């Protein structure tokens, strides 16, 4: 079985985000980049499946050269191959553009399951899973928290609001993973050293059979107009709890007079 895992290379979730001059992008200085935690669930499930049933795992991303470190991480954890679709020179590309580029390359590869996280944690709009499935003309199941393998397909449990849904999907197909599906592994040093020796295939939009004009420039449908940081959190006010009755009175007073929520 051939697994393709799409990953996003995003700022570490602990990064203190600063907005860059111009106000529409983030300041990338001192940012530590990681594989999106949701894509890590996708990669882990693909690796586990490969280990149990055989096959290959190919990690793929769209991004600048720094995204190679994310792909190396995937190789270190056990992916067989890695492909980067170079973003250099394209300027801004929106989710649909990324989906077109990924789909273009994936079509050139044998693929039984296409994996990714249900979201990146960067600038994506959580729409890649359905978009990619549509462009590949494959079924998809998203927000998967549990997966069982059936003959010719999968039985997936997915989170919906207030309930869980069990979906049967034939393969090939696209699976969007989310938190709860598994515990992503930590790369062994053996894996890290092995990954250093592998080459990352770098592809252009042309390799994907995509005309840059259809994904960049005028073709971009979603644009950032302004970025703003959330307001700084106010200092916590602690009420001493020595006397519960007094504390309750004080809490009520604060909620009414200061917070004005009562």
């Amino acid at each position, binding site marked *: 079985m051939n697994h393709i895992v799409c990953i996003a290379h995003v700022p*570490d979730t*602990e*990064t*203190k985000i600063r907005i860059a001059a111009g106000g529409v992008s983030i300041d990338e200085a*001192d940012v*530590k980049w*990681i594989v999106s935690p949701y894509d890590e669930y996708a990669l882990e499930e693909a690796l586990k499946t490969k280990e149990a049933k055989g096959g290959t795992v190919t990690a793929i991303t769209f991004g600048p050269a720094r995204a190679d470190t994310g792909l190396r991480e995937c190789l270190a954890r056990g992916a067989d191959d890695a492909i980067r679709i170079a973003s250099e020179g394209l300027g801004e590309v929106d989710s649909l553009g990324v989906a077109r580029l990924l789909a273009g390359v994936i079509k050139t590869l044998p693929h039984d399951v296409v994996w990714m996280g249900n979201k990146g944690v960067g600038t994506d709009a959580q729409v890649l899973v359905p978009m990619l499935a549509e462009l590949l003309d494959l079924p998809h199941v998203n927000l998967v928290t549990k997966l069982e393998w059936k003959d010719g397909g999968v039985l997936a449990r997915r989170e919906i609001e207030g309930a869980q849904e069990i979906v049967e999907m034939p393969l090939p197909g696209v699976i969007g993973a989310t938190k709860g599906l598994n*515990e992503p*592994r*930590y*790369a*062994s*040093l*053996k*894996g*890290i*050293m092995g990954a250093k020796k592998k080459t990352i295939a770098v592809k252009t939009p042309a390799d994907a059979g995509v005309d840059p004009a259809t994904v960049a420039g005028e073709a971009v449908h979603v644009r950032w107009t302004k970025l703003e940081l959330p307001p700084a959190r106010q200092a916590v006010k602690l009420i001493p709890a020595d006397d519960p009755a007094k504390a309750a009175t004080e809490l009520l007073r604060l909620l009414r007079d200061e917070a004005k929520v009562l």
Partner: protein
Amino acid sequence: MTITPAQATYFGFSGTLVFALLLLAALVFFTYTASRRIQLLTLGGAPENRLDHPLARLWHMVEYGLLQRKMFRDPYAGLYHALIFGGFLVLSLRTLMLVFEGLFPGAGLPFLPAGFWEGYLLVKDLVLVTTLAGVVLALARRHVAKKERLDPSFDADLILLLIGFLMVTDLGAGAAKMALDATKGAALTGSALWEPLTYSLSKNLFSLSPSSLQSIYFGCWWAHLAAIFVFANYLPFAKHFHVITALPNLFFAKLEPAGKMATFDIEKAAEVEKFGVSKVEGFTWKQKLDMFTCTECGRCREVCPTHLTGKPLSPKGFMVDLRNALYADADALIDADAGRGDGSAEAKLAARRPLIGGWIDEETIWACTTCRYCEHACPVGITFVDKITDLRRHLVLEKSAFPKEAQTAFNGMERQGNPWNLAASDRGAWTKDLPFPVLTMAEAGRANVEVLFWVGCAGSYEERGKRVSQALARLLHEAGVTFAILGSEETCTGDAARRLGNEYLFQTLAQQNVETMKGYGVTKIVTNCPHCFNTLRNEYPDFGGTFEVMHGTELVARLVHEGRIHLVNGASRSLSFHDPCYLGRHNGVYDAPRELLNAIPGIALKELPRSRENGMCCGAGGGRMWLDETIGARVNQARFAEIEANGTDAVGVSCPFCMVMLGNAKTELSGKTEAFDVLELAAQALPVHPG
């Protein structure tokens, strides 16, 4: 004149010949066993040089071996062991004498002056009895006044009885010979003087017939020598191998700082794809010598914080399991190493019980807090932590198999430079509340900085740790010491990563930090985290970073001593002091925090029953800070209970991890004794400057 046993003939064979054959057989068998044991030591493991500083090594051997420095911590055991050990030292010459007598009947040892022997006989005569007394006391400890640390052992009883047998037969032979001489009219005045005990024993034998006396004499003589041969040949198979290996083990002991872990070349290891140790033969020869040397006395076990709280790790059990694993496949290992045979040795090794998961459970490997109390307790210089961490290295680097919680810490260290997973850019944020600016090295410039304040992750991010960092900054500021921090350029030293087996992550962090500090020309560092202290001081030199590293309490105590800081205010309180393992046992810093505490007005220090070298771990060392503690009682609570029992108003600590662990224990147990960092107490005592 009485003939000696070797001068007699036995079934037509001369006694000398019989003796020579016996001796030869004993020597041949012993040489064979010894060569097999040496082969077992040297095969498989990485090379290790333990011949540097020979004089220091020799002294170490004399101090801990011949002078038995650690043995008297248990006075009773120290006494009987010294009696038996003294017996061995004295009587080895006696054995040589007897062997010589067997080979060259009638001749004395040629190389010693005649007068020497009389004095020696007197000593020997006394030592035969004191050794016997030692054996009796040892048997009493094993069977009457039992200790938890000792396990019932057939081996131990056998060896003790054999030693007793040697003494009795020596005495018996001597006394019977003396009585026999007397029946032949020889004057015994000299003997009465120089061998008084043998003499008084022999008087009880005067009534026996000469032939009976000769039978006793010959019987005891042969039995004694045969027992020596059996004894020497049995030792390598028994737990009493230490009789032979303890002195070499002490000679080859680690002379490097105790807290320094061995660095290995990752690139080189990657070529053979082997990291850490997964098979028992993969330990170095010295590590295997440790296994040979363990006598199962259990001094390590009775102090081990994880054993005492009911976890599966007991240092003694661990060492014995390693040895058993080594011995179980010794023949196959030696055959496979020599490359001889039909591949059956290799097949046997392929099918053997695995070391990790077979002999040693993974839980055992992760239980260790690396506090080194066991190593402090061991009288024969066995180290345990190196073996634990070698196994962890294999699990992490090759198998990526470790407690899940560690992954969060690893990721944090890797990505944000701290195991708390907090933003690297916030590392210097603790300085904001101070009434004076704290500059980074980049802001201050190297020429204007006396000492780099290495804050550490806990001091930068952990709430209480930040207050302690502020305290040190205030103390340095008060003394007029120009210092700077690295701010967001500082990352975790990697201590926890290394002790959890993640050598790759550790080396990455170490190289990065050394490069940063060298870039600023740093020469002096002060840090209040004993883990950073140990790593910076003892481990960074391997990465080209040699600095003068001081612990916060060392520097501040010095500043107080020099009169640069005056501690004037102090609340009157009684205080216990909890020694951090990585400051104390790992680095020998015991006095500085105490000196500082004694300089603070109002503080009355009351030592804990277990303090200094015997301080008990808080449970956070060895990366355990980042792991869940699910088996047995909690180490921090066990230590906190000891502190509560000391009955002081508060407890002083000098490590941010001890602070967290003891603080948690106080909450968990609804205890009374609050923990303060020594530097917090010192900063509270600073004079208040108006304005």
